[in-house]
């Protein structure tokens, strides 16, 4: 089983309200915000690892490779995934401004052609651009079966199919995909029993959330290989299909009043806000 996971580094989402816009609205400025691994991509790494494990032990012969597109500093975020347990990384160097979801999907399609994984797992969206497009576009480019917004994944014992529960409006759609396939993961994929592979015993419950890397793994990650190459080496057309013409900050909402009790709240809702 070979799994490829795509990573993006994003400005610290817990401080996204500190982003600024450069004079003239020419770009978004994230100075001072730490670059973190996109949370959904962290879940994608966790999903991949659970699929290649028998409980706490790695299944021999299985491998997880992580790949990212971005500047040199992205290496830090790739190391984090390696410390979690991924085996190797690849970084295709590019400025952030030269990338968008469409180009990343086309780049990933080339990487898939080279590496021939059985499964590609991605976060459902990066929390900076909020585009939610790469996994779907990649599946279409490859002509591979896919499931977006996965909240559960079950790999069949014969490793030929994967059954995926998709979080959609109004419920859960379950699909069975013939591998190779593309999956994008949603929040609950990291709940303790969401990922099963018919190897790890059913009694094994993972800790909720993506795993923390213990110190020995962090040290080990420093010796794991990260292949670097310019984006151009993939032979993709670098032209973007969209063009941002400006950025602005949203209007700020003003804080209102504090009410002293339920009676006053109801009165305000009825008379002032006319919302009751």
């Amino acid at each position, binding site marked *: 089983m070979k799994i490829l996971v795509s990573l993006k580094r994003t400005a610290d989402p817990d401080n996204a309200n500190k982003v600024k816009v450069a004079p003239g609205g020419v770009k*978004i400025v994230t100075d001072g915000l730490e670059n973190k691994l996109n949370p959904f991509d962290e879940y994608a790494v966790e999903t991949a690892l659970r699929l290649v494990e028998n409980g706490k032990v790695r299944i021999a012969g299985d491998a997880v490779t992580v790949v990212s597109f971005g500047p040199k500093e992205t290496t830090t975020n790739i190391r984090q995934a390696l410390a979690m347990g991924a085996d190797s990384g690849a970084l295709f160097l590019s400025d952030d401004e030269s990338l968008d979801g469409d180009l990343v999907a086309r780049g990933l399609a080339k990487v898939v052609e080279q590496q021939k994984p059985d499964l590609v797992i991605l976060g459902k969206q990066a929390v900076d651009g909020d585009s939610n497009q790469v996994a779907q576009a990649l599946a279409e480019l490859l002509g591979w*079966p896919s499931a977006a917004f996965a909240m559960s994944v079950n790999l069949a014992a014969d490793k030929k199919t994967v059954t995926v529960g998709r979080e959609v409006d*109004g419920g859960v759609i379950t699909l069975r*995909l013939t591998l190779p396939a593309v999956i994008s993961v*949603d929040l609950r994929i990291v709940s303790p029993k969401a990922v099963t592979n018919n190897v790890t015993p059913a009694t094994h419950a993972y800790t909720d959330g993506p795993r923390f890397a213990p110190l020995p793994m962090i040290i080990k990650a420093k010796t794991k290989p990260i292949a670097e190459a310019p984006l151009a080496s993939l032979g993709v057309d670098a032209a973007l*299909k*969209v063009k941002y013409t400006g950025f602005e900050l949203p209007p700020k909402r003003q804080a209102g009043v*504090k009410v002293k009790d339920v009676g006053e709240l109801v009165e305000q809702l009825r008379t002032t*806000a006319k919302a009751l």
Partner: protein
Amino acid sequence: MSKILVVAETSGGRLKKTTHSAITFARKAALPFDILVLGHGVEAAAQELRAFGAGAVLAVDDASLAHFVAEAYTPTVADVARKGGYSVVAVTASSFGKDLAPRVAVRLGAGLAPDVSRVEAGAALTYKRPMYAGNAIGAMQVTTAVQVVTVRQSEFEAAAPSGGSSPVSAAAASPAPGAERVQFVSFEEVKSARPELTEARVVVSGGRSLKSAEGFKTVLEPLVDAFGAAMGASRAAVDAGYVPNDLQVGQTGKVVAPGLYVAVGISGAIQHLAGMKNSKVIVAINKDAEAPIFQVADYGLVADLFKVVPELTEAVRKARADR
């Protein structure tokens, strides 16, 4: 000449209200538009769509489209768009639209404008879209001849019928060889008597302070129903397993903008605010007076929710009964 293909969303043949936001988008873009409705047993949905001023309603009724599987739907949408010479394909950014649109864009070699909150008509359409959990707004254009757009439902109000009777024509489903390797197993629908989150006039949401699934059931739900509201939740509450993710309001969940939003025991993390800060009136109940939710709330009540929510429930019931 430029024209828009609006892709309608159906479920079990029924037209979904998300569709009406994409129609509003088309009207605001000020270009002629047609509506494509696809599924199985969509005759009534097609009839319903005749009243919105579309040049035509194109109906694709096929057993292979009975359930939404992206691999099955994509070739048909792309082929209809290509054959009809449409310059814009628009669909609401529901889980359906978010799944479908990027694929259609690839098929058409089109650029994608995802989850737009505004459109400015003109020689080239300019889109505004929230980024960084709504903390920045980007203005963008698509530079390819054909463009694909997904439309944020909370920012494009549902279109009302404008009269008229657009002609309905049947179109054929395209072969979808890729769909053979995707087997639809089931759709477990969460049935609720409550309004849908994205359509409700009042939304009452709970956070982790409700402490359990039981807390949602016994404390929050009576308030939800007293308001006749939809129920939402913070990501923390979903993470803790109190309620399904389907109820999550926030950057990566549902984005809502109701007339009244009541946040109960929600601290107001950035990613939650991204999903509700455009609500008309916001009420926050939290025992932590410093909780960030109070910075966006019109009315804040610093109190123990387990004490005041039942009181509020009673008061709302009474107020609504008196109307």
